[in-house]
């Protein structure tokens, strides 16, 4: 099973450029159509399950707006 | 010809083209870049020379070379770029060749900002480059004046073989106003001026143009020739505009944008019954010395207003010689004054009392403490 991950986007600094949307290998990032931030941009957000926490979105993000987390397998943790 | 709504920078570019501009060399810098962009399209379209140089240093030296051929040539820049051009400016002055330069001033010193300013007055009027030289400095207050003065600049530069600067600013460069453009002049062929470097073509002895006079007596003669020519220019080429001065008790002196802002304030003051007028120098070099001197003998006070720390103020003080009190008001560093600020200065001055013993710059700085802090 692929690792599970998630991202947090700092919406106030996101400019909705869409590079992370394009780069995401799992195609699980979208620009939020329903809201705009203080600067008038639709910020990026995780739309679906399937994030693996690979970090590629953060690598391409020009704003350093994304923090990436990956779940640590609980089984390993317990050992 | 019908009036056209044009941006100041583009209007200057088109006016230069119509005045027979043969070659343009420049470098992008805000807020004059539209001028370069316009000519990057327009000059090649007409088969004329356009080069975007690698720097202002290179641009002005390309201009230097082109001017040596006797061709109509121009460059444009904004304050920091103009500082880089000072090398070529001094060399061209010493070589006594005609050149037109447009300075769309912005806030300084240093990199400053891109907002309008008039802080390059001293650089263009009182030197900038090294050595003893003078240059004609024209200060437009509108897009139409920018157009008219561009054409005039070429004529004056050639008449006196002298550097001619159009000292504009970011607001005049960026604003759009209706203007009437001059007729298209045909491009002249190769210059037949007796000094121009055009290759001998087997027709004459070889020539050279340079700014080097290693024999000090030759250098002195050159300096004196340049200064004598300047006296002629002072006698013939002073230009200015007067508003409501006939019966004025108080006079404002301001050039370019500052003069425009003052005009609005003067009208408001007149509506209130205060007898104030405006003298707007068009040439700040040569400066309207006689006009200011006469004014100082018939008004109760003069207010100098500029978008710098009082650079023209020093010239006015030297001319007024204590004939009447001189006051000063300025916003600077890229801040443009609103008319109401000048109006309150008029109120203050009309109320009095005024003294010839007060240092106007120092008094202004004291008043500014309340505005800026």
């Amino acid at each position: 099973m692929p690792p599970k991950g998630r991202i947090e986007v700092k919406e106030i600094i996101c400019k909705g450029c869409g590079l992370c949307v394009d780069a995401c290998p799992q195609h699980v990032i979208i620009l939020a159509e329903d809201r705009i931030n203080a600067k008038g941009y639709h910020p990026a957000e995780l739309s679906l399950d399937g994030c693996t926490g690979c970090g590629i979105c953060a690598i391409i993000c020009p704003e350093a707006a994304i923090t990436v987390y990956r779940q640590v397998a609980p089984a390993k943790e317990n050992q | 010809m019908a009036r056209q709504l044009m941006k100041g920078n583009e209007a200057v570019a088109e006016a230069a083209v119509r005045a027979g501009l043969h070659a343009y060399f420049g470098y992008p810098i805000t807020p004059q870049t539209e001028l370069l962009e316009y000519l990057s399209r327009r000059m090649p379209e007409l088969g004329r020379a356009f080069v975007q140089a690698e720097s202002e240093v290179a641009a002005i030296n390309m201009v230097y070379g082109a001017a040596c051929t006797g061709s109509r040539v121009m460059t444009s820049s904004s304050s920091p770029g103009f500082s880089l051009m000072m090398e070529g400016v001094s060399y061209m002055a010493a070589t006594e060749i005609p050149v037109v330069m447009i300075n769309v001033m912005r806030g300084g010193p240093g990199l400053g900002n891109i907002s309008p300013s008039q802080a390059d007055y001293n650089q263009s009027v009182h030197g900038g480059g090294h050595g003893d030289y003078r240059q004609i400095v024209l200060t437009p207050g509108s897009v139409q004046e920018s157009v008219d003065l561009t054409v005039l600049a070429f004529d004056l530069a050639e008449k006196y073989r002298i550097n001619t600067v159009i000292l504009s600013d970011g607001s005049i460069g960026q604003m759009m106003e209706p203007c009437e453009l001059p007729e298209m002049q045909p491009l002249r062929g190769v210059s037949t001026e007796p000094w121009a470097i055009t290759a001998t073509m087997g027709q004459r002895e070889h020539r050279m143009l340079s700014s080097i006079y290693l024999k000090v007596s030759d250098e002195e003669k050159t300096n004196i020739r340049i200064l004598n020519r300047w006296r002629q220019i002072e006698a013939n080429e002073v230009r200015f505009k007067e508003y409501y001065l006939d019966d004025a008790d108080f006079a404002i002196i301001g050039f370019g944008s500052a003069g425009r802002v003052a005009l609005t304030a003067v009208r408001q003051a007149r509506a209130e019954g205060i007898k104030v007028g405006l003298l707007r120098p068009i040439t700040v070099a040569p400066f309207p010395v006689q006009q200011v001197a006469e004014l100082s003998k018939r008004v109760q006070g003069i207010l100098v207003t500029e978008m710098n720390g009082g650079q023209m103020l020093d010239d006015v003080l030297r001319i007024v010689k204590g004939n009447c009190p001189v006051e000063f008001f300025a916003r600077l560093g890229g801040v443009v004054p609103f008319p109401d600020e000048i109006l309150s200065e008029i109120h203050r001055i009309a109320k009095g009392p005024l003294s010839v013993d007060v240092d106007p710059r120092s008094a202004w700085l004291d008043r500014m403490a309340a505005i800026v802090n």
Partner: protein
Amino acid sequence: MDLPIQEQVVYEHPVALLDVSTHYCPGCTHGVAHRLVAEVIDEMNLQSKTIGVASVGCSGFIYNYFDVDFVVAAHGRAPAMATGIKRCLPDRFVFTYQGDGDLASIGMAEIVHAATRGENISVIFMNNANYGMTGGQMAPTTLPGQKTTSSQTGRDVEQQGFPIRVSEMLAKLDGASYVVRRSLHDPKNIRQAKKAIRIAFETQLRGLGFSMVELLSVCPTNWNLTPVDSMKWLEDHMVPYYPLGDYKVHPAVAEMRI
């Protein structure tokens, strides 16, 4: 019973980069380059001894985005200013960050001479094939045929000359120790760019002389393309003219173990 999910942080904002919004346009790779520089500064623990030299151009305000000391140079003069700083404070880490107008046009003399002197500084050179700040005019790096606001029918090499391949040119100088070109158009290239920045910075730290990393970058606003299309344009048009690669690696740099 739900077990608490344990997470590791895969990526977070570098410490050397301030947590503020930049003035750059959406999708501008200045942001990526800033981040990479900050990440390397973090990794190498350089934050407290770093002095940056900003240039004139869009990145003129870079000092607002980094949590390190900064000065701003006159247009094109960053390598000269960095020389002054480095000669006075030789144990500090000094880098310049310059665009193509700044470095390859007005500042050509300064960069050539800093490189030939083997000045012990690091240079981040952003090549986006136009002048961004002033609104998209032709730069020395503008490609043949490329339309800009001052080459409106496309750069005509007959009238306006050819683009300069700065890395190749500087590589001819004996004083240059590490001169490479990388690109920022996709995650793989961004990773490689970061490695190059690391090597450049190590070059300086070990006193091995002049280092420069040229980074091919996008300018979506002035190119009139979306950020995503800009990346594609970079890959399709810029990379063929400006091949990625190592143009000068001094043997002493090649031997470094990082």
